C-alpha cells in the first residue's frame, strides 16, 4: 500500500507541475494552451533520447527537456502571436497532435510507436524498487516546490502584474507601453518549460514513454485540475492536481463497496463518477477551490 501511495503522490506531483505550467500561460496571461500534451511529450522525449542515446547525466536531461519545450513554446507563440482565444486553442491542440505524430513516425529518433523503454532513473539499479519509488517521489516534490516558488515570485512581481494586465486587456497593456507580444512569448515559453520538466520526470520515473501516452486526454485532466483548483492561483494548481489524482485513483476503490455489478459496468461507472465529481466541483466552486487572490495593491486602493 505504501508503495502505491508514494507512486500516486509522484504522479500527482507530475500533474501539479503540468498544472503550474498551464497556470503561467493560461491562468496568469490568458493564453489558452491546449498543446500541453505536446510540451509534456517534448520534454519526455528530449530527456529520454539524450540519456538513453548518450548515457548523459540525468539532470542534464531535465535541463534539456526544459530548454527544448521552452524553445518550442516560444516558437509556437512567435508564429501565433496575433491569435487569441479559440483560435489559439485550436492551433495549440494541433501542435500537440503534431508532436505526437512526429514521435510516432520518426522511428530513427523516437523508435516510433514502440516507444522508448529502459529510460534510466537515478540510482535505479542500485536501489530496491521501493527505495527508488520513494527517492523519485522526493525528487518530484522538490521540483514541485521549486516550480511553486518560482511561479509565486513571478506572480507577485511587477512582471506578473503585466502578465495579468495582458490577460485582462492586452490593448490597455500596450497603451501603457508594455511590449505585449514579448510578454506573451515569454510567459508561454516559461509555462512550456515547466511542462517539459514534468515530461522528463514522467519518463525517468516510469522508464517508458510512447506516443500513446501523450494523447489529448491528459491535457483535459490538467485543465480540470487547474480549473478545480483555481485558475491564476499557483497553490490552486497544486491542490487541483492532487484533487484530480485523488478522484482518478480513489474511484478505483469504489469497486469494493458497490455490489452486484459486472466488471465492465464498474469500469464504466468509475468513468461516470470521475466526470460527475468534476462537474460537481465546477458547479459548486466555479472559481475553483482556491480562487485567485486579489492583489494587495488593489486592496489598498479600493479601501482608501
Amino acid at each position, binding site marked *: 500500500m505504501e508503495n502505491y501511495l508514494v507512486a500516486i503522490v509522484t504522479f500527482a506531483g507530475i500533474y501539479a507541475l503540468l498544472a503550474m505550467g498551464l497556470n503561467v500561460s493560461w491562468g496568469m496571461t490568458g493564453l489558452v494552451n491546449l498543446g500541453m500534451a505536446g510540451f509534456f511529450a517534448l520534454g519526455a522525449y528530449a530527456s529520454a533520447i539524450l540519456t538513453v542515446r548518450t548515457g548523459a547525466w540525468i539532470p542534464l536531461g531535465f535541463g534539456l527537456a526544459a530548454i527544448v519545450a521552452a524553445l518550442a513554446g516560444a516558437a509556437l507563440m512567435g508564429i501565433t502571436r496575433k491569435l487569441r482565444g479559440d483560435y489559439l486553442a485550436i492551433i495549440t491542440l494541433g501542435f500537440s497532435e503534431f508532436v505526437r505524430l512526429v514521435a510516432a513516425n520518426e522511428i530513427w529518433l523516437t523508435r516510433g510507436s514502440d516507444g522508448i523503454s529502459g529510460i534510466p532513473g537515478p540510482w535505479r539499479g542500485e536501489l530496491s524498487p521501493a527505495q527508488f519509488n520513494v527517492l523519485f517521489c522526493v525528487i518530484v516534490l522538490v521540483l514541485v516546490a521549486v516550480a511553486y516558488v518560482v511561479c509565486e515570485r513571478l506572480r507577485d512581481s511587477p512582471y506578473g502584474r503585466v502578465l495579468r494586465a495582458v490577460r485582462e486587456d492586452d490593448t490597455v497593456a500596450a497603451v501603457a507601453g508594455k511590449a505585449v507580444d514579448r510578454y506573451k512569448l515569454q510567459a508561454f515559453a516559461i509555462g512550456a518549460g515547466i511542462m517539459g520538466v514534468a515530461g522528463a520526470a514522467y519518463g525517468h520515473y516510469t522508464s517508458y514513454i*510512447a506516443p500513446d501516452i501523450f494523447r489529448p486526454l491528459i491535457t483535459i485532466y490538467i485543465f480540470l485540475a487547474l480549473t478545480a483548483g483555481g485558475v491564476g492561483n499557483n497553490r490552486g494548481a497544486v491542490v487541483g492536481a492532487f484533487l484530480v489524482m485523488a478522484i482518478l485513483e480513489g474511484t478505483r476503490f469504489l469497486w469494493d463497496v458497490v455490489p452486484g455489478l459486472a466488471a465492465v459496468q464498474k469500469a464504466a461507472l468509475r468513468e461516470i463518477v470521475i466526470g460527475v465529481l468534476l462537474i460537481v466541483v465546477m458547479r459548486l466552486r466555479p472559481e475553483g477551490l482556491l480562487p485567485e487572490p486579489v492583489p494587495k495593491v488593489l486592496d489598498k486602493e479600493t479601501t482608501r
Partner: protein
Amino acid sequence: MNEQEGKTTMIIATHRLSRRSVLAAGAAGAALLAAPAVVRAQAQPIRLGSLTPLTGAGGAYGPRMRDAIAAVVNEVNAAGGVRGRPLQLVTEDDQTSPEAAVRAARKLIDVDRVAAVMGTWASSVTTAVAPLCWENRVSLFTVSGADSITLLPHQGYIFRTQPNSRLQMRTVAKFAVDEGAQRIAWMGPQTPFAQSSIEEFQQVAQAANRPFTSLIYEADKATYRSEVDQILRARPDFIMFGGYTPDSIVLARDLFRAGYQGKVMAPAYAISARMLEALPHEVTQGAMVYEPWPEVASTAYSRLQRLLGSGVEVDPYTAQTYDHANLAVMALAIGGDGNGLAIKDNVRRISQGGGQSVDNAVDGLKAIVAGQKVDYTGASGPCDFTAEGDITGTKFRYQRVDKGAFQVMKIA
C-alpha cells in the same frame, strides 16, 4: 513487497506475500518464525490481477477476457484452491492507455500484491507496465503482438500467448503468394508492428519474385483518396491492410471508388462484422481476413465456451486470457511461495515438455498434487513458450467475405 527486505532474510525466505503476516511474525518473534511456513500460509489467498481494457479502444474485448480469467478462478476455488489456498481475482481497467495502466498496475502490485498480471492488450500498455512487473517479481501474461515486448530485459517474467507480428506477417505473406498475388502492396497507419509487417512482406515478396510496395498513412483521416492514388500507381493486385476498423472502412471505400479490382486482405479485427455492416456488399465482396485461431477442436476451447455460455463469442484474445489463468494457477501449484517468482519459474514445467495432457487447471492441479508431469494444451493453442516468453506454433484462420458475410476458407 519491498519494505520486507529490510527485515531478516528469514522472513523473506519463509513468507513474502502479506505485510500483515510479516508484522505478525515479527511481533511473535523467533518461535513463530521457526514454525513451518506452510502452517501460516494455508489460509492466505493467492491474488491474481486482471488488467484488460474494459474501456477505450480495447473495450470490445476486455470484459470477455476478464470473464475468462474469472471462470478459471471460480472453478479452481470450487475444487479447493491451489494446494489449499483460495484464489482471489482483482480486476482493474487499463483504459487502453499506458498512462492509466501504469497507475492501475501499481495498485494491483503494491496494494493487492498479485502474483500475476494477466490480459494486457495494447502493446504500449504492456510495454509500460512490464518494468513494474519484473522489478516487483510479478509475472505478466499478455496478448500484445509487438515484437519489441519479449525483447525487453524482463528476466523471464513476460509470457506472451499472441504470435508476434513477424510470425503472423510471414505466414500471411506466404498465404498471399499462394493466393496468386502478382504485385503486392501494404497500407496501414503507424503502429508498433507497421515496420516489421512491411519488412516481412517485403522479404516474402522478394523471395517469390513479386514486386512489393508499401505506404504508411495517418490513422484518423476522413478520406484516403491521395494515398489510394499513390498506391495504385504501382498497379497492385493484392493489397494488405495494416490498420484498424475505422481507417479500414475509409480505405476500402476509397479503393472501391478508385475502381480497384484486385484482392484485399486484413486482420480480422480490422475487417470486422462492424465494417461489413457499415459498407455495401459490393465494396467488401471478396475481401479476405486472417486471425490467429484458437484450437477450436481442442477440449479447452469447448470447455471455455461452456463456461462463458453459448451466447458469448470466444475470440482469440479471450481464449488466450483463459490460458493465462490456467497456466498461472498450475505453475503456482508446482511449488514456491504463491508469488510471481513461482509462476515465472514453473510455467514451462506445466506448459510443455510432455507428460499428461491436460486442458484445464482443475485437472492439472489434481495431477500435479499426485506428482505427475503435466503438459497443458490451451484454448488458444499448444501454449509452448520459448526462452524469451514467445509462443511457438499457432494456427491461423482465413475467411473471405461473400455478400456481406464471412465464409471460412481454411484453418492452417
